[in-house]
C-alpha cells in the first residue's frame, strides 16, 4: 500500500466510482453552499467594516487574485516539471534523476507556509511572484514524479517498435512516450492544481492577495461574516478547480486507451 502518495490526494488516473460521484456532486454542492453564503452575507445588516469587504468588487478582485496565483503556479509547474521529468527519463540522465526527485521531495515535505515565509525573508519580494514561485516549488513534485513514472511505465515493446520502424529519439518521446504517459501526467497536474489553489490562500502573508486575505481580515477585525465569506469562497474555488482538473483528465487524455 506504499503507492499512496504523500499528499494523500489521488495521483492515479482513471475514473473510479468515488470519482464519478464527486464529478457530479462537487459542482452542485459548491453552487448551493457558495450561493447560500453569499445570499446570507449580502442580505444581513453589515457594519462599516464588514461593508468594506463584503461587496462584489472586493470579492471578485480577491477571487481573481487567487485564481491568478493558481494559474501562474500551474503554468510554472507544468512548464518546469514536464520537460524536466521527460528529460530525467532519458538514459543519460539516470544518475541525476534521484537528485532532482530528492529536491522535489524536500520541497513537498517542507511545510508550505515555511517555504513561503522563507522565500519572502530571503528575497524581500512581495506580491504575486513572491507567492507563486515558492508555491510552485512546493507543488512541483506530483507532476514531476507522475511524468517520470508515466513515461517509465510505457510498455517497452512500444518504444522498441517505435525505434524499430525508424522514429528518431525525439519522435519516440513526443509521439509515443508522452501521449501514453499523458493520463499519469494529467493526474499529477490535477494534484498540483489542488495543492496550488489551497496554498494560494496563504499568499496574503507575503502580500500576494487572494481569498486568504478575507479570512485574515475577518479574524483580525473580529468580523466572522467576512471570515466565513472568504473561507467559503476559497473552499468553493478549490473544489471548482479540482473539478475542472478532473474534467480535463477526462477530456484531454489520449483516445484509444483504457
Amino acid at each position, binding site marked *: 500500500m506504499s503507492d499512496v502518495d504523500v499528499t494523500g490526494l489521488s495521483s492515479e488516473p482513471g475514473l473510479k466510482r468515488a470519482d464519478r460521484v464527486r464529478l457530479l456532486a462537487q459542482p452542485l454542492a459548491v453552487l448551493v453552499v457558495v450561493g447560500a453564503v453569499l445570499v446570507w452575507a449580502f442580505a444581513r445588516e453589515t457594519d462599516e467594516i464588514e461593508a468594506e469587504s463584503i461587496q462584489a468588487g472586493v470579492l471578485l478582485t480577491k477571487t481573481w487574485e487567487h485564481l491568478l496565483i493558481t494559474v501562474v503556479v500551474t503554468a510554472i509547474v507544468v512548464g518546469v516539471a514536464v520537460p524536466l521529468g521527460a528529460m530525467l527519463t532519458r538514459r543519460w540522465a539516470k544518475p541525476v534523476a534521484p537528485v532532482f526527485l530528492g529536491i522535489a521531495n524536500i520541497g513537498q515535505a517542507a511545510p508550505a507556509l515555511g517555504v513561503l515565509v522563507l522565500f519572502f525573508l530571503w528575497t524581500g519580494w512581495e506580491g504575486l511572484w513572491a507567492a507563486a514561485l515558492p508555491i510552485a516549488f512546493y507543488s512541483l513534485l506530483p507532476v514531476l514524479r507522475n511524468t517520470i513514472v508515466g513515461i517509465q511505465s510505457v510498455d517497452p*515493446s*512500444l518504444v*522498441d*517498435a*517505435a*525505434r*524499430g*520502424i*525508424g*522514429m*528518431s529519439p525525439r*519522435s519516440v518521446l513526443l*509521439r*509515443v512516450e508522452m*501521449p*501514453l504517459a499523458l493520463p499519469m501526467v494529467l493526474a499529477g497536474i490535477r494534484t498540483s492544481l489542488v495543492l496550488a489553489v489551497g496554498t494560494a490562500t496563504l499568499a496574503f502573508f507575503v502580500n500576494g492577495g487572494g481569498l486568504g486575505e478575507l479570512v485574515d481580515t475577518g479574524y483580525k477585525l473580529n468580523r466572522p461574516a467576512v471570515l466565513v465569506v472568504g473561507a467559503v469562497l476559497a473552499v468553493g474555488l478549490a473544489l471548482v478547480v479540482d473539478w475542472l482538473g478532473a474534467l480535463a483528465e477526462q477530456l484531454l487524455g*489520449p*483516445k*484509444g*486507451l483504457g
Partner: protein
Amino acid sequence: MTSDSTDSAVSGVEIQLEGVTKRYPGSAEPAVKDVTMTIPAGQIVVLVGPSGCGKTTTMRMINRLIEPTSGRITIGGEDALELDDVRLRRKIGYAIQQAGLFPHFTVAQNIAVVPGLLGWDKKRIAERVDELMDLVGLDASQFRDRYPRQLSGGQQQRVGVARALAADPPVLLMDEPFGAVDPITRGNLQDELLRLQADLGKTIVFVTHDFDEAVKLGDRIAVLGEASTIQQYDTPEAILANPANDMVAGFVGAGASLKQLTLLRVRDVDYPDLALTADVGESPSELRARLARAGDTYALLVDRRRRPQRWVHVRNLSAATSLANIGRPVGDTVSTQSTLQDALEAILAEGGRAVVTGTRGEYVGMIDIETVTGVLAQLREEHESAGDAGDAGDGVDGDGTDAADGDGHGGDAGRAGVARGDAARDGAGRADGGVDGDAGAAADSGAGTS
C-alpha cells in the same frame, strides 16, 4: 505476367552478416559470437533456437536497435553500420510480438507512421494505408478508424504486418510476430504471410522459438545454439532429413515425419469434389430431387460467391419451405494454401472430412482422412523405392534424399521439398494471374477468421 522465374517477384535484397559479435560490458561471454551468414534476397530465413540463445539480438543488430560490437553487416551491398541508424530503420520493416501497435493511434495512423516519417504527402499515405489493409485482409472502411484495443489479437498482428510493409521496404524483420495469438489464428496468419510473400518477394528475417513455425515459413532455417552460433543453416527439408548434430536433432523433435505434412499444401494433393452444392435460393423440393438423383444425403449450401455456409441433411428438406436458416453451420474449413497438417486438424475436428476453399473463400472441394493417409502412404512408398540410393548428401535441394526417420512411418523429405517448391512458384503465378478481386476476397476471409 509470367511466373516461370521466381526472380520476377523478388523485391528484397540480400543481407550479409560477417563475423558479427555482440559483447555486453560486464559479461565475460559474448551474447552473439562471430555470426556469419548470407540471407538471400527474396527469401524467408527463420532464426530458430532456444530462448536466450541470442537470436533476437542477432536480428536486432540488422536494424541496429542493438549496435554490434564488431563485425560487418551489409544490406543490399550497403554497409548498414555506416548509415544513420534512424534512416536505416525506415528502410527496414519491423514487426514484433503482440504487434507493438501504438494504442493511442488508430489503425490507419499506425500504418501511416513510417510513410509519414518519410515525408509522403497525405493523399499518397491514405491510398497506401487502404492498399495495405486490403493486402493483409482487413476491410479498410470498417477498421481504418478503430483503435488497436478494439481489434482481436489476429487483427492486431495483421495491422502490425501492414505497418511493417508500409513504406515497401526491401527487408522485413519479424520477431515472433505470431507468438501471442491462439494456434488457429497463428496458422491463418502464417498462411497469409506466405501468400503475401509469394506476391512481394521481400527478404524476411523471422525469429521464432517454434520449430514447426520455422518449418512452415522458412525457405531456409538457421538453427542457433548458445551465443547465436549457427548449428545448421539449410532448407527445412534438409534439416528435417539430416539434422547436423544432436542439438538440432533435439530441436527437430520426435515428430519429424508428421512435420513433413506441414511441407505439403492442400493444393498439392488431389482432393475430390464430393459435395453436392446448392444455392440458398434453390427450392427445398428441387434440392431434394437432386439429392435423390445423386444418391446423396447431404448438400452444402453456398452463398452467391459460392462460399460455404451450411450443411443440410435430406430429412431437413421435407418440412422446410426455404433453404434459408436450416441445417448446421460449416465449421473449420481449409484453404488450398493450408498445410496438410492444418487440414488434418480440421478433418479431425469436422469428423472425417473438411471443406476446401479457394483463394476467394469459394468452395472448391472436400478433403478427407483417406486423402491424407493416402499421401502419407505414397510418401513412404516413394521413400522405399528410392531406397538407399540417395546418400543423404547435404540434402539442400532434397531430391530423392533419404529421410532420416527411423520409424518408417513418415514420408520422404525430398519429395515433399519438390512439391513444396513447386507450390511456391505456382502460388506466385496464381497470385499474379489472379484478378484484382483476389486481395478483396482475402480481406473478407481475413476479417471473418479473426
